[in-house]
């Protein structure tokens, strides 16, 4: 059962990821990423990270990707042939990516981590990955990280408004 769920999720996630890279129209790429994220959330569930699975969908699919959709629709579907990139990068890119994958896989498989071949400990607490547990950690041990992240978010919001905001007189600035 778990295997079926994992492979279904993995197939969906990989398919989504490939579609993001390969589809010509950015709008479709965005949709593909949504599909990818939904499947990935399923895999999160398998890892017993329920809160993050829900957060992933609410935050990513529900909010972040909506902004993408907006922008993709706003700037219009500029189709580009997927592979007529820089002639050197066209071949170089996939090779480098493959090398990266192989290398990390070797590193993971060959690592001396004991737990890596297991499914993880079975005696984890009942509230592992529930909102309550994550929330408690967030406000206890990781308060500073939490507050730093919220400041970062605020900065990003301000930055976005400054970047995308319409200037009062729309003067042509030298570019």
């Amino acid at each position, binding site marked *: 059962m778990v295997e079926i769920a994992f492979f279904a999720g993995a197939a969906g996630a990989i398919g989504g990821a490939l579609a993001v890279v390969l589809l010509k129209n950015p709008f479709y790429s965005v949709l593909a990423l949504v599909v990818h994220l939904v499947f990935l959330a399923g895999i999160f569930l398998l890892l017993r990270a329920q809160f993050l699975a829900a957060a992933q969908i609410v935050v990513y699919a529900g909010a972040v990707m909506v902004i993408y959709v907006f922008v993709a629709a706003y700037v219009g579907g500029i189709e580009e042939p997927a592979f007529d990139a820089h002639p050197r990068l066209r071949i170089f890119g996939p090779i480098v990516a493959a090398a990266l994958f192989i290398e990390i896989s070797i590193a993971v498989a060959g690592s001396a981590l004991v737990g890596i071949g297991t499914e993880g400990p079975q005696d984890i607490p009942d509230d592992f990955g529930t909102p309550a547990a994550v929330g408690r950690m967030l406000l206890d041990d990781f308060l500073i990280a939490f507050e730093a992240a919220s400041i970062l978010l605020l900065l*990003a919001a301000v930055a976005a408004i400054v970047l995308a905001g319409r200037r009062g007189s729309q003067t042509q600035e030298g570019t």
Partner: protein
Amino acid sequence: MSIEWYLVLAALLFAIGAGGILVRRNPVVILLCLELMLSAGALAILSFSRMLGDGDGQVFVLIVLVVAACEVVVGLGLVVAMFRRRIPLDVDETTELRG
């Protein structure tokens, strides 16, 4: 399912994202590929968190989620600003960083 599978999946997703950044020119798609890489990283962290039976990793992923949201907001703000100023949406055309 042993944790290894999850990690390999994370590696694959990460590699796809990295490859995407190298071959695509549209800044929106490049940002999407960054999201791919970030979520692959999140998956890896979650796998390790499950492997150790320690929930700390989940908080870390949550923070990554926030960081990703910030990155998107700024990145897309840049894209919109580029579009407004009639700059072609092609990262190969924007070479102002040339030394």
